[in-house]
């Protein structure tokens, strides 16, 4: 079994790594060079739930050098229809602990880093600066705007995914090159306007598909392969089993990435999304202010 060393050493393809990643390296678009880049990559997955489970799973399988996890939730029975990193015995455990255990078992070569607590304005900038790419696998508008702004301010690309019922959306945002999430959605819906999965439901494979697409996008970014979703919004309709896409453009008037940005630091995202300080009606999952 390979020993865990510095992240730079993971670029060394010993016989075990060559065998583990052989199917990747056979691909001309990846090859040995691409796998080395993946092995040196540092990716933070924000959210270890429906989207984060498949995303983190595939990123660990691919041998991403450092895989960070942050999610303040505990595993709940209602999660297990889709949050495939977690199992029945994990109910009540912190999701990040449950996730880390499975990811390390899948691939001991990956440095899995568990970050305690929730992503917040008080920790996002420092946290993001320690990673190359961020995966938005969160479940609230407040978190999505926080991730967007922190990525723009730290210059980190991030891969967005969101789901509801049978639908999914995905895109890749590269600050300094194309639009950001605020260019796409300058403001969130008022509370109660767009239902959550808890209210409207979601079918398990839907976040499975979108989260897997997020992992694919990350690997392409790291390896420099193919064409990412930058500049496009992928739309998935699981009932019709159909993918569509629309083109996204940078908004020169965007509040955070525009020509004259008005947002130059992280804000109170709960307030921006119209939520009370405890995060809204769900008192079981309070989202603290910074």
């Amino acid at each position, binding site marked *: 079994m390979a020993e865990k060393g510095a992240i730079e050493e993971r670029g060394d393809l010993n016989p075990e790594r060559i065998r583990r990643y052989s199917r990747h390296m056979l691909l001309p678009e990846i090859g040995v060079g691409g796998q080395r880049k993946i092995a040196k990559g540092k990716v933070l997955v924000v959210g270890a739930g*429906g*989207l984060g489970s498949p995303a983190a799973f595939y990123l660990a399988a691919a041998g991403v050098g450092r895989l960070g996890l942050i999610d303040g939730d505990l595993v709940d029975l209602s999660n297990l229809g889709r949050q495939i990193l977690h199992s029945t015995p994990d109910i009540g455990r912190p999701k990040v602990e449950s996730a880390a255990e499975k990811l390390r078992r899948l691939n001991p070569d990956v440095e899995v880093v568990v970050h305690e607590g929730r992503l917040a304005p008080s920790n996002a900038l420092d946290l993001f600066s320690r990673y190359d790419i961020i995966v938005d696998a*969160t*479940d*609230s*508008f*407040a978190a*999505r705007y926080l991730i967007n702004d922190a990525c723009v301010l730290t210059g980190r690309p991030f891969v967005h995914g*969101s*789901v*509801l*019922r*049978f*639908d999914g*959306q995905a895109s890749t945002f590269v600050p300094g090159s194309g639009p950001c999430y605020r260019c*796409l*959605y*300058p*403001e*969130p*819906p008022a*509370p109660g*306007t*767009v*239902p*959550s*999965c*808890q*209210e*409207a439901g*979601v079918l398990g494979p839907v*976040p499975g598909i979108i989260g897997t697409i997020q992992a694919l996008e990350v690997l392409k970014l790291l390896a420099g392969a193919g064409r990412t979703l930058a500049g496009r*919004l992928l*739309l998935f*309709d699981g*009932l*019709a089993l159909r993918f*569509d*896409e*629309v*083109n*996204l*453009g940078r*908004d020169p008037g965007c509040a955070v990435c525009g020509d004259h940005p008005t947002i130059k630091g992280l804000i109170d995202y709960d307030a921006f*999304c119209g*939520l009370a300080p405890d*995060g*809204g*009606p*769900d008192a079981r*999952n309070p*989202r603290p202010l910074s």
Partner: protein
Amino acid sequence: MTYLTPEIDLGGEQMTCKVRISSPLRRFAGGAREFQVEAATVGDLIRVIEADHPGFAAKVIDDQGQLRRFINIYVNQEDIRFAGGLATPLKDGDEVSIIPAIAGGSGGH
């Protein structure tokens, strides 16, 4: 303006657009994922849908008559905000997608 249901065939002379509505708005437009509408502009298209499904327009348009900022409308994959907004003209065979933001989640928002 005529709201065409899929069962009515008025022949090739009518100017029709295919409208696709994403999940959160679908129930306000009769529940169909995809349907056809005859309209000259995006704004007209919304009015046509409103005529058959009262209340739809208010979900999409705010009190100032502007498209709500968590909803995007695309004509043939291009965002109308970069075209003519609600005045964006439509032509026969155009595909109009109405896509609101979604976040997933547990009801914190």
